């Protein structure tokens, strides 16, 4: 554990520089640059809103706004984008950085930190845009928005923990890089993001208990759409799970350390 922190401290310049480079790279040579990061999720929102709002708009009692569905949808998409991006990056964390790991001596723990830093920076941009749009739609943020750092932190912790485990295993089982996106697709549709929870039949609803994304997305809904405090108990459970996964992930990194580079 001590060596872990020492490695991170020694390579702090590398972490900072890598995050900066990744962000700069997004802007390089394309006119809209980093704006594409915002455009993609917002277009997704626009499409779902256009296609489904007529069907679903009646179901939102808690939000007093004409654009209730769009606001609900956007809040969920913000959470999903963060989870999806973190996990996708972690999936290729070691495989994608194979050249670097083979040729340079870089502590492996720096890589998830770089991934998290980049994803968080991008997500912050998306978050700021969304807050602006909400205000424009007559749904300005209230003080409950102060819960956001905590919720975001729990989400990233969980995604990073899971991602690290998957990232290590992906070095040895390359099928994961195909499998994980499919599972993510299922998870997306199995989480109430596009639709409200009420449309799930009562006898099926308990299945959501097994979906770790449900409490996280719900917390985003609570804070951003319904503007109320999130359920701290379920967040705590996910946070704990995330912490355990992270420990497992770091442990796997340590165990796999000797052989990982051999197979990259």
């Amino acid at each position, binding site marked *: 554990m001590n060596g872990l922190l020492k490695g991170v401290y020694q390579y702090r310049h590398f972490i900072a520089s890598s995050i900066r*480079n990744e962000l700069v790279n997004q802007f390089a040579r394309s006119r809209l640059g980093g704006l594409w990061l915002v455009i993609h999720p917002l277009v997704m929102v626009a499409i779902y809103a256009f296609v489904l709002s007529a069907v679903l708009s009646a179901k939102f009692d808690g939000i007093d706004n004409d654009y209730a569905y769009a606001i609900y949808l956007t809040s969920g998409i913000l959470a999903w984008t963060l989870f999806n991006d973190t996990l996708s990056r972690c999936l290729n964390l070691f495989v994608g950085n194979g050249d670097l790991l083979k040729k340079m001596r870089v502590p492996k723990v720096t890589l998830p930190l770089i991934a998290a830093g980049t994803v968080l920076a991008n997500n912050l941009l998306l978050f700021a845009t969304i807050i602006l749009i909400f205000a424009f739609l007559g749904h300005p943020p209230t003080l409950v928005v102060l819960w956001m750092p905590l919720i975001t932190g729990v989400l990233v912790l969980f995604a990073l923990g899971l991602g690290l485990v998957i990232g290590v295993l992906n070095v040895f089982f390359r099928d994961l890089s195909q499998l994980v996106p499919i599972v993510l697709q299922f998870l997306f549709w199995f989480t109430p993001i596009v639709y409200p929870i009420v449309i799930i039949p009562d006898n099926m609803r308990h299945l959501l208990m097994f979906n770790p994304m449900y409490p996280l997305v719900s917390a985003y809904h609570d804070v951003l759409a319904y503007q109320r405090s999130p359920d701290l108990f379920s967040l705590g459970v996910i946070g704990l799970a995330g912490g355990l996964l992270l420990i497992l992930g770091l442990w796997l990194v340590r165990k796999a350390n000797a052989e990982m580079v051999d197979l990259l």
Partner: protein
Amino acid sequence: MNVLEVHRLTKCFREFNSEWKRVASWFGFSVKPLAVSTVINDVTFQVKAGEAVGVVGQNGAGKSSLLKLITGTLQPNSGSVTVNGRIAAILELGMGFNPELTGRQNVYHAASIMGFGAADVDEVIADLEAFAEVGHYFDEPVRTYSSGMQVRVAFAVATAWRPEILIVDEALSVGDSYFQHKSFNRIREFQSQGTTLLIVSHDRASIQALCDRALLLEKGSVIKDGPPEEVMDFYNALIAEKENSTVEVKALDGGKVQTSSGTGEARIEEIALYNSKSELADYIAVGEDVELRIKVKVHKPITSLVLGYCIKDRLGQVMYGTNTWHSQQIIENPEVGSEHQFVIAFPANLGVGSYSVVTALHARESHIDANYEWRDLALVFNVVNINKMQFQGCNWMEPKITV
């Protein structure tokens, strides 16, 4: 003081019929791998501060793996590497350069991989830019660089701070000759300030010019550790080694070691150097016309016989060498038992010093195809300056100076 200690280092790659077994092995289950290939096998050596060590060996002997274990990109299965100080490697020049970023930005990033922050780079960036000599390109994206420019910038970052250990892997042959000289000078400079060099190369000349010691790796083990000339001779013999051929090492007077190898179909019976008065000579004068007389006996049927020789200086650098294939004096189908006398007359236009003669008997252009006998240090002689003006260097180029 030792800057590098490698102790009983072993690295193997494990292969499993299912990767699940590999994962199970991390959890402490004892699973048998399908195959284990050992790339580094029980290697132990120490390197002192300021030493220059050449690492040689055939392809696949484990040179790169050893270096990766030393730099820490590969992890050993057992044994240890202890490094006192910072290691810099000129292995993959330009590795990790981001094509969209400018040379300057890449320098900051590359330095961060080496553990240096922006403030550290700020201190050296002016010198670094001057050293790289890429002009205004320094602030252009790296994708617009030629490969030579990329190497210049990469070398400049890699050597911006003097490391305790510098690893050089054939990189000296990159870039144009002007920059090669420049980078070579910097490496020498570091060495004189106490940096230890680890040099991997197939190039005999650069190993012998730079190193004071060499390690020969073969199948993951260090099979020879000693003065570069001796190790390179042994390496050379090893390359030429074929079935039924032998490598023989003989200690000569004065601590030198003669290595001979070959399949033995033909052997040198006698070798001697005669001066301009046709007397046997150990000492000859600069510019003197001398004769190298070599008697060869054929022991087994062969289709052709070529004699090659070269003259090397004290450090093992080749001064001159050729063979009877190039002079088109191949002896076709020599009879078994026949003896052949070769007389090689030449002016000894060499600088003052001690020289050795290497001989080789083979079938064709080089000793790679068939090597009857290869003998290093077959003869040693000295050149002294008797009647020429004072000069320096390894050869006599008579000047006409007008003022």
